[in-house]
């Protein structure tokens, strides 16, 4: 490499980015290399159910051309969307009511305190008995796992409202309904967004989990079937696809939240 290009590469802006990408790529190469070595000539060679890196990669790429993968991804996203919609509506309604009215808070807070700490997976056997391995199983599990984050954030958001702006609304003689719709709700929107982002990650996890553990349709079910037919490379490939889905999903939600904050001058 000539002197000129190397200084160009090390320039702070573009250079640092390029360097980071390079290091990240190197990390992947080392990881895959180590994996390949371990499973071919290394100590874990010929372990049952442990595919080599090359077989996993080819299976992952193969899956990209499979219509089954795409329809399962679609089903999973669809179930996540429905569960998220229920969680958002119920969580915001209950959270705002609890934050706004001491009576509602006294009524619902004990229930939420009791139910919230129950890990959502624990509901699976019961729900499986009631719903069977149906789409509703994924939705119900997702809802139970995701509703709390929205509820808690909504509650905090309403309680965290600037007292000056509340007093302003009183001084303007705003009726309660207008105070709620023009002051309280908009002021809590960033909290709703945070709640939705956290909740969506839980819901994705639980919808896929409901598929793996309970046979609810979607990506999880596909993994369950691959496991039952004894195809570890396919299981691994699907795991990588789940990771990719989660990553994309989370980036979109994080970007949405950042955009929202930007729109309010950082507030």
């Amino acid at each position, binding site marked *: 490499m000539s002197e000129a290009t190397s200084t160009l590469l090390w320039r702070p802006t573009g250079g640092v980015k390029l360097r980071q990408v390079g290091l990240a790529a190197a990390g992947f190469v080392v990881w895959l290399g180590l994996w390949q070595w371990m499973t071919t000539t290394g100590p874990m060679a010929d372990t049952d159910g442990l595919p080599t890196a090359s077989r996993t990669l080819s299976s992952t790429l193969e899956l990209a051309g499979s219509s089954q993968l795409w329809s399962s991804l679609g089903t999973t996203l669809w179930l996540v969307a429905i569960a998220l919609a229920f969680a958002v509506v119920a969580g915001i309604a209950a959270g705002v009511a609890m934050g706004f009215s001491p009576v509602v808070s006294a009524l619902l807070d004990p229930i939420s305190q009791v139910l919230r700490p129950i890990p959502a997976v624990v509901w699976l056997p019961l729900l499986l008995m009631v719903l069977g391995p149906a789409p509703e199983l994924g939705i119900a599990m997702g809802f139970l796992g995701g509703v709390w984050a929205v509820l808690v954030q909504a509650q905090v958001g309403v309680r965290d409202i600037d007292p*000056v*702006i509340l007093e*302003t609304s*009183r001084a303007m*003689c*705003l009726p309660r309904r207008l105070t709620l719709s023009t002051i309280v709700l908009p*002021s809590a929107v960033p909290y709703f967004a945070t709640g939705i982002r956290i909740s969506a990650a839980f819901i994705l996890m639980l919808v896929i989990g409901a598929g793996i553990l309970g046979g609810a349709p979607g990506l999880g079910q596909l993994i369950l079937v691959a496991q039952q037919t004894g195809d570890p490379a396919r299981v691994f490939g699907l795991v990588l696809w789940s990771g990719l889905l989660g990553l994309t999903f989370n980036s979109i939600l994080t970007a949405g939240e950042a955009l929202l904050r930007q729109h*309010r001058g950082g*507030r």
Partner: protein
Amino acid sequence: MSDTSQPRLALTDLSKTYDGSTPVLDGISLTVGAGEFFSIVGPSGAGKTTLLRCLTGLMRPTDGQVTLDGIPLSEPSPKMSLVFQEYTRSLMPWASIGKNVALPLRARGVPRAERTSRVAKVLAEVGLSGVEAKYPWQLSGGMQQRVAIARALVTEPEVLVMDEPFASVDAQTRMDLEDLTRRLQQDHRMTIVLVTHDIDEAVYLSDQIAVLSKNPARLVEVVDVPLGAERDQIHTREMSTFADLRGRILRTIRDVQTQPV
């Protein structure tokens, strides 16, 4: 008492304590006539904001009462507008300037078309034509303060109450806003109650000045300001009456502060 001689705002024996024992306000009685520019001065932390919150009905006094046009006030009245000391925080950052200023009109059920025209008119009055679509955080501090004033004026209140409204803007903006406030008061024949800890500002703007002491806040004296209706930032401040009043009020405040309680 006939309608014309009745004071617009009357405080009778007003007392307030936050913790049940330490008085913040102690037996304050004063009257503000219709169309008067009335200032309240006192040292920082004296209880000026507390007094304003009581006299606007935002907070119940522990003792005594407030009447607006002879009627006891127990909650904020639509005839009154308030400009808060923390005006930046009193604007909604998620709503455009137009929506911010129109909100008190929505509360009063004014139809949309009329809201739009009244908002445009009042923004023009404070020298901010055409900023309706902007957001509060896109404006400078002085401009935000004008928006807060515009929002207070848009309902055409009979009484405008302002809590240290010019404390955090530069000297030139401050003079502009002072003159704007004085002009609006003259144009609309409004009653203004202004809280400030700047004695010069109080003398320049007011018809009457109430001086408060601290710990607890008591009314020390009410000073008449015979400087006429027309005020000018240079000439008025050069008048000997101005200097006399300024000296008298400063001396009063120094005396009450050095006195043992």
